[in-house]
């Protein structure tokens, strides 16, 4: 295990950024944390989590796929894919780290694979930071995530008042830590931090969230549940929950017509939107009830159906904080779970 004094953390960030681009959670002008490239003077955010999740760095909201250039009858097709430089994401929380595993199953390991996603994923080194001060909105424990363990990345990290501690867990992680201005630390250096974090986990109000009514094979049982109508009645149909969600993965492909050039890009889509998966035959989910149901059934039933029972929620709590009307997956799980 390695460590560095917090007072010297800028030396570490500088050393990393000399090797690779370093993304760090930093507060923006409105005090909202976001992953942005580190440069001299930037301080790590004190917030538990970023507003948008770390998935942005592998699966950005907008990305060009191909460009078309037209000159009379001549059409030139320009590949928009760029080589990605290697990069480091520092301070990913265990919930977001778990979300990479969920996204990997879709984009990295399922045919057809997503070469844009893979290109970024392969170039990344992820430093996962354990959570000392989880919030009341955290329910990652329900999905088997241990916020004290900082698993799921290339390097696990812990912090206390004085130091950051690091432990490489993959070869990539070892390569990153090599040559950085770090001191050696005892193997058990983070044990007290973990112990304190586990004590806090015991106090979290949503720690016992019961998922037993959901999972693979529950489609028939849950699809026509009358509760969907009531749960969705005040949903505004905005895309906030889907866009702050670390596991939402749907996208649309659009053309931006500039007259002589067309940019074909993909962008995040939201099952909450009225034209999501609209076809020439019409909209398969005509009201907000069906759209709302789709989102939660996907997280809690369809995805587990396709991926060995794994849920596609990590309990980060972003939707609990940001939904304009405070409807969220916890309320869905509790309402439907309790009546079954």
């Amino acid at each position: 295990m390695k460590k560095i004094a917090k007072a010297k953390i800028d030396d570490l960030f500088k050393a990393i950024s000399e090797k690779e681009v370093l993304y760090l959670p930093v507060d923006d002008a409105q005090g909202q944390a976001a992953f942005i490239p580190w440069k001299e003077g930037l301080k790590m955010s004190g917030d538990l989590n970023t507003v948008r999740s770390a998935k942005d760095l592998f699966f950005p909201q907008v990305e060009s796929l191909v460009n078309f250039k037209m000159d009379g009858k001549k059409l030139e097709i320009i590949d928009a894919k760029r080589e990605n430089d290697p990069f480091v994401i520092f301070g990913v929380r265990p919930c977001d780290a778990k979300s990479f595993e969920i996204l990997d199953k879709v984009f990295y390991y399922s045919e057809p694979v997503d070469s844009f996603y893979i290109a970024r994923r392969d170039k990344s080194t992820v430093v996962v930071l354990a959570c000392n001060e989880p919030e009341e909105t955290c329910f990652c424990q329900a999905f088997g995530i241990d916020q004290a363990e900082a698993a799921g990345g290339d390097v696990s990290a812990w912090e206390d008042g004085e130091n950051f501690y690091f432990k490489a867990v993959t070869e990539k992680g070892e390569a990153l830590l090599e040559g950085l201005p770090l001191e050696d630390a005892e193997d058990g250096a983070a044990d007290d931090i973990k112990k304190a974090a586990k004590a806090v986990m015991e106090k979290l109000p949503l720690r016992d969230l019961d998922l037993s009514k959901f999972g693979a094979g529950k489609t028939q049982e849950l699809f026509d549940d009358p509760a969907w109508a009531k749960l969705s009645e005040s949903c505004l149909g905005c895309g906030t929950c889907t866009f702050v969600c670390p596991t939402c993965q749907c996208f649309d492909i659009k053309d931006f017509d500039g007259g002589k050039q067309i940019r074909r890009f993909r962008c995040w889509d939201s099952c909450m939107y009225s034209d999501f998966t609209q076809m020439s035959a019409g909209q398969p989910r005509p009201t907000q009830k069906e759209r709302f149901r789709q989102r939660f059934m996907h997280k809690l039933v369809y995805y587990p159906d396709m991926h060995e029972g794994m849920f596609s929620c990590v309990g980060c709590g972003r939707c609990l904080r940001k939904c304009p009307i405070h409807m969220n997956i916890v309320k869905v799980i509790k309402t439907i779970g309790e009546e079954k």
Partner: protein
Amino acid sequence: MQAVIKKKAKELLECGTVDRVLGWKAGEFFYDLTPAVFTTPEEIDKDFVFSVFSGANMSKYLIEETKKEGKVAAFIKPCDSYSLVQLQKEHRIKRENCYIVGIACDGMCDMGLVREAGIKGATAVSEKDDKLVLETIYGEKEMPKEKALLERCVHCKSKKVVDFDEMIGENGEENPDCGRFDEVERLEAMTPDERFAFWRSQLSRCIRCNACRNVCPACSCEKCVFDNPDSGIAQKAAASDFEENNFHIIRAYHVAGRCTDCGECSRVCPQNIPLHLLNRKFIKDMNELYGFYQAGADFETKPPIMNYTTNDAEPSVVYQRGGSK
């Protein structure tokens, strides 16, 4: 206040004045209230909450609720009531299908501001003098209530409920000296480059979730042009800086003269973009160029953009004002 409101809600259901009640439903925590329709006194006893976190403006829900059979009761705060009147002026709400209980309001709090004050893991709240006392996973914390107030409440333009069937609490007055244009004036004093930089720094953070539009009582189109694949400008995400700016500026134009400054757009923005400032700039300009107008303040006054007077500003005012103002 909550006890009185709940009693009234049950009474309205029990004596058959209404069939349904629109209100705020308890959540997992003290702050995550969800707008909901209640149909029985038992539901109201169990889940109806009115607190300093009942910020959501219920007026827009009345568009759909008043299309249904029977009558619905709604509890309307002063700022919500301007939206209620404006929507009636636009023939979007069937007034005969709703029963409006006006409620006096001392300002609503925002959980985002509580968190910004550094309070983590809050599980319960109480009010003591001018303070919010928060029980948290990490012990008891307190903060001044005024620091947790929504921006629109800090600069509350009116404590008057402008349309109601009955009132709970005493109706208040308009407050023209609320200082709600101070921030707009600060932006006006900037150079065009500074102002552009300010808006780029804000709008570049937009994630196009459409929460501002979908919550906005003035955005009541059946199908938004930005959602219509046949419009040629449907946008699920901004493909360029221009589109990013365009969405918010077009929206501000579209609601000009109809925006009551209810502040819901800024309340719901997950990125804390101060969207209300765009609308306030339009309101301030209209006040200066066409005379004072408050959307939703009454049923009679014609909005400036739909009304011609010989004193109206000429289009050349754009050049007269120049780029510096």
